[in-house]
């Protein structure tokens, strides 16, 4: 045997030498030969051909000819599968697809964004209600429960779950149908009682112990606990292996922590001081040893308990059932009307503390439940037969109230169907506000109609006002005699009375007139000179770059030659024609007024293609001096209006994209809404005193009992 083994080992080594990197595949199949070192089957090194596998197929009669043929073809064909694309390429393709997807997803926002950009005015928050007087339906629909009184009433209404859309059974009835038998209920109640009692006992004890300040006591206590725990653990290993495993894990964790830390390693300050004292003091030595022992204990590896042992699982008596921790449903003991509630889902819970009273009560309650159930059945029968008017009334009120309750959960119900009764109640109480809000939003979404903004078409072109003062083009040249212009024939004006008095001043004037008559020619020639001077100043000067003496003789009285003048005298382009070119008796300054230019628009704003378009777009003034009040308000209205103090939330998809399903659901829910009762409650709350309302509602609800 040993030789064989040796041989095999050497063979293995050789193999390893030959194929040092190749790993032997481990096979878990059953085979005849089992190696000691690795699992191996016969003929491992060989390649498995398709033919090897297909040979059997050929022989089997069950396989169809077609498949055989296909397989044969496959065998004969030498085509290989294409290589999969490399990582970069696949990722690129994936990215491309993802991009397309996201663009499609995002592009649904495009329209609304464009629309908002174009909008003359945006009012935020977007889903704002109109500020005017509201209809009562709207007010009631958007009504949140805020005050304690309202909350109480809503709780009341919740309690009586009534049919919404005339179902066969009310939720209460359904619930009661599902209810357990009397015996079962009793057992359950007893269990609960015990659990509660135990819990309270433990709590009291823990409190008491926690108050004790002595360290020694706690030390002892801890030790005892540990011991107890170990004992328990041993037991647990036998009884509850899963729990034990968890405990073990915890221990493992603490061990790890211990190993990581330097605690109990005799390396601390205290330990060092003790080490000095250890020679002389026994207690110190003991303490040190204790510490080390602790370390050892903590770092010791635990033995894994074997999983094989499976024993029957018994529930520990001490373990507290889960339902003990469930929150107690709030039932106001003070409020007498609360007892008139139609349902008591968990009557056991309310009676844990006082045991003597309980039993009697319990019986009562159970009787109540049973009695109620019976009554209901009767009622239903009566309804079917259309018998008693009073009961009808009662039922009516109940249904109305239930409808009112149900409307708040309407959205939930319509979506997910009816929940179980208990869940529904809790949910309703806890998340009442939220649900309501959502339903309102849904309402609004339903209502909202995103109308595409009609682009205002420019109205029919108006007939342009003919310029009255436009004159035929003047074709006078500069040569026109100014004298002619000035001495245009003037009409003499006939006066009713001639001047009689001649003042000294007038005499002076006459003298000056005579003077002017002689100097008249001068005035005109001066003006012409002035104008020519102005024109000359406006013309750009010729730049003379000729350097005398370059390439020729220089000196006084020598002119640069023509070629030089031609080449080095630079003429700039002539300026545009003067404004007063055709007005001989006018000089218009060609200077640009830079002062206005600094206030002007210097670059054409975006959508406009030429200045004429832009200028015509701003030709109408917006001030109140030139416009009526309404026009000014309209023209200067702000682009964005926000409501003071309102939260502006980002736009939600639901705001502008409405799904048909939700809309339909909301419609049904809306139509079923019993408005009348709503109004009643609403106005009661608004107007009347709290006690009265509660009592009144209690009356309404008490009718069926």
């Amino acid at each position, binding site marked *: 045997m040993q030789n064989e083994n040796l041989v095999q080992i050497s063979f293995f080594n050789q193999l390893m030498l030959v194929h040092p990197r190749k790993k032997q595949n481990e096979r878990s199949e059953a085979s005849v030969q089992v190696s000691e070192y690795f699992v191996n089957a016969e003929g491992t090194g060989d390649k498995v051909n398709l033919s090897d596998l297909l040979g059997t197929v050929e022989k089997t009669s069950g396989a169809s000819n077609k498949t055989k043929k296909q397989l044969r073809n496959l065998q004969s064909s030498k085509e290989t599968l294409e290589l999969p694309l490399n990582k970069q390429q696949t990722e690129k393709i994936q990215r491309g697809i993802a991009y397309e997807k996201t663009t499609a997803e995002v592009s649904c926002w495009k329209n609304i964004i464009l629309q908002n950009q*174009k*909008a003359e*005015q945006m*009012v935020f928050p977007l*889903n704002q*209600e109109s500020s005017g007087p509201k*209809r*009562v339906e709207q007010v009631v629909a958007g009504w949140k429960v805020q005050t304690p009184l309202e909350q109480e009433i809503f709780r009341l209404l919740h309690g009586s779950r009534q049919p919404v859309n005339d179902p066969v059974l009310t939720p209460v009835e359904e619930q009661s149908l599902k209810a357990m038998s009397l015996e079962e209920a009793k057992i359950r109640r007893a269990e609960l009682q015990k659990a509660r009692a135990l819990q309270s006992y433990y709590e009291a004890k823990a409190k008491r112990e926690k108050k004790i300040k002595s360290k020694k006591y706690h030390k002892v206590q801890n030790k005892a606990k540990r011991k107890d725990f170990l004992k328990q653990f041993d037991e647990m290993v036998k009884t509850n292996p899963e729990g034990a495993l968890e405990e073990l894990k915890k221990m493992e964790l603490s061990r790890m922590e211990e190993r990581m830390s330097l605690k109990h390693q005799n390396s601390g300050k205290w330990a060092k001081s003790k080490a000095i004292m250890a020679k002389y003091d026994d207690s110190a030595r003991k303490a040190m040893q204790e510490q080390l022992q602790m370390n050892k204990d903590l770092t010791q590896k635990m033995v894994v308990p074997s999983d094989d042992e499976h024993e029957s699982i018994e529930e520990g008596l001490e373990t507290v059932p889960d339902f003990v921790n469930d929150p107690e449903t709030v039932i106001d003991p003070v409020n007498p009307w609360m007892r008139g509630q139609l349902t008591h889902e968990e009557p056991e819970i309310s009676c844990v503390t006082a045991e003597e009273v309980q039993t009697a009560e319990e019986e009562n309650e159970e009787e109540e439940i049973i009695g109620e159930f019976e009554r209901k059945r009767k009622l239903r029968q009566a309804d079917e037969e259309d018998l008693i008017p009073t009961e009808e009334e009662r039922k009516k009120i109940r249904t109305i109230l239930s409808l009112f309750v149900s409307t708040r959960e309407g959205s939930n119900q319509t979506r997910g169907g009816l929940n179980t009764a208990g869940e529904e109640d809790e949910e309703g109480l806890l998340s009442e506000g939220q649900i309501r809000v959502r339903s309102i939003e849904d309402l609004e979404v339903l*209502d*909202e109609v995103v109308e595409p*903004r009609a*682009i*205002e*078409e420019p*109205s029919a072109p108006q007939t342009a*006002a003919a310029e009255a*003062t436009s004159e035929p083009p003047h074709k006078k040249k500069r040569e026109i005699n100014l004298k002619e212009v*000035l*001495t245009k024939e003037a*009409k003499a*004006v*006939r*006066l*009713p009375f001639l*001047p009689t008095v001649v*003042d000294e001043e007038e005499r002076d004037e006459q003298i000056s007139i005579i003077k*002017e008559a002689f100097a*008249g020619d001068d*005035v005109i020639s*001066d*003006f012409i000179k002035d104008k020519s001077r102005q024109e000359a100043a406006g013309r750009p000067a010729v730049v003379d770059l000729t350097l005398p003496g370059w390439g020729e003789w220089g000196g006084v009285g020598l002119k640069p030659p023509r070629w030089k003048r031609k080449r080095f005298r630079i003429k700039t382009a002539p300026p545009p024609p003067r404004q007063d070119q055709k*007005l001989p*008796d*006018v*000089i218009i*300054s060609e*200077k640009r007024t*830079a*002062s*206005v*230019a600094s206030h002007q628009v*210097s670059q054409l704003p975006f*959508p406009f*293609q030429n*200045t*004429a*378009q832009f*200028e*015509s777009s*701003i*030709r109408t003034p917006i001030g109140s*001096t030139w416009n*009526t009040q*309404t*026009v000014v308000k309209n*023209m200067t209205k702000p682009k964005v209006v926000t409501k003071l103090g309102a939260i502006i939330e980002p736009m939600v998809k639901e705001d502008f994209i409405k799904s048909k399903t939700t809309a339909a659901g909301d419609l049904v829910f809306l*139509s079923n809404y019993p408005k*009348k009762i709503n109004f*009643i409650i609403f*106005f009661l709350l608004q107007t009347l005193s709290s006690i009265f309302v509660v009592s009144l509602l209690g009356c309404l609800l008490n009718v069926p009992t």
Partner: protein
Amino acid sequence: MAAVTPEVLTSTHVEKMKKKKLPKRYWEETEKTDQSQRRPEEEQGKAGQNQNKSTVKEKSLKRKNGESLEKKDPFPGEAPIPQKQLQKFQRGKKCKVPAGARERLKEAIAISEAMSEHAQKQAARYDLLLPEDAGFLEGDEDEDTNTISQADIADAVDITSGSKYFNLHLSQFGPYRLDYSRTGRNLLVGGKKGHVACIDWQTKDLKCEMNVMETVNDVKWLHTEAMFAVAQKRWLYIYDSKGVELHCVKKFNDVLRMQFLPYHFLLATASATGFLQYLDVSIGKEVAAICTKMGRLDVMAQNPHNAVIHLGHPNGTVSLWSPNQKESLVKMLCHRGAVRSLAVDKTGTYMVTSGLDRKLKVYDIRAFKPLHSCFLPAGASCLSLSQRGLLSAATGEIVQVYQNVLGSNPVSKPYMAHRLRGQIWGLAYCPFEDVLGIGHGEGFTSMIVPGAGEPNFDALDTNPYRSHKQRQEWEVKALLEKVQPELIGLDPGQLSKVDQASFEQRHKEQIEALGFDPLAKDKFKPKTKKKGRSSAGAIEKRKRKVAHEDQRDEIRQSVQERTEREKELKEKSNEKKLGNKSTLDRFRK
């Protein structure tokens, strides 16, 4: 617009629709059957009930109205606006959307056009609120209106109107200059020999009277009737309505004529020394002082349309000035003799001049072209244009009023005439009144000229009946809306035009305004180095290194370009040479 209002309504409609389809409810039954039971509920839920009722009512009303409307309303839609009124409020020409315009442009044009059209229509509609109309004096057959005397008119009209014809006999300190306040309530008269008085002329309530003991050349109200400026012998003085001297502006000396630009809060003065000065009365600063180099400036007028000052000169020219330009905007040769008087109409379209050559000329000052001229035997020493375009000319001691002067057809005879005693020194129409004030050597005369004043006043701008409080409020508003003097120019709409000057031009202007070139590169300054490396020679060397850097760059670039071009040319020529390919071409790189 993200309004939410309409949606709410639709929801209720939908609700109703749905409600019809549903089976009957018990409460509906009860409502119909037992009324008595419903009573208490109804009281509580009144609102809900009312809702239903109201809807029912609405429905019935609608039906009724629908039927009646179809039959009765013969004028559907908005009331039409007369084309004439619309044209009155048209501003500029409509812009057409070009053929291949982008969507954004189309929208922008459409919105602006819609807005301006809306504004125009509204203004035209509100034109209804200007009910007053102007009238004119009409004589009997073959009776000239100019022969009707003032006394006759005063007798004919009602007492209040008749009281507007009055004479102030002030022969001691004359001749008088005068000015009416913008609202037309207050009158300011200043005698040449120092007598200054301000009067609420309608109530004949004298507000203040004083003698400044100096020659008074001109008087002018400032923006309100609380302050006025008096151009005295040497300096310009500002008094308040009680006659208390507020300022003596010594920067403004030898002022002969004044004009107040109400929207700019500028007091423009023309002095004997040939200076045209602007005083901003809101901040008390001199805005501009321009030396006109045209001699004594005693003829002055303002263009109310664009706040340009017109000055008449002894050489027969009229020059136009703005505070932003040191030279005249326009210079026109109007008369062969000196210009005696000037007047510009309210719309800024026409200018009327009179010169020593005894001619009266009407110019279109938008085109700077003479429209017509007429010969007055005595020549007009003073001219004034009323709000409705009546021209008054003082020829000697006669005041003539001409109608329809502003136009292309020349006038032949005056509309009204009035003889006074003494030389006429000042003429002014009272705004919003059919009154012409005449200052002359013997005092002041208020003359009734029917059809002179604008019958409709803009109460937000100039309200003749405003209270003290209103005046204060107006003052604040006017100060807030003050137009800056930089915006004065020949074209008041210049601001709404795109500045199409080139970059170079703007840059040049900037350099002129700043006094330096903001875009110029800093001159290279070599760092001071130590250890003897900052010697003069070394610094020069370093300077040499960076000298003409720009030019060098340019040269480098041009050289590179040239070489590249040459290379290309060479290649091309090579290709041409080797037109027929050989087999060895493939080895060519």
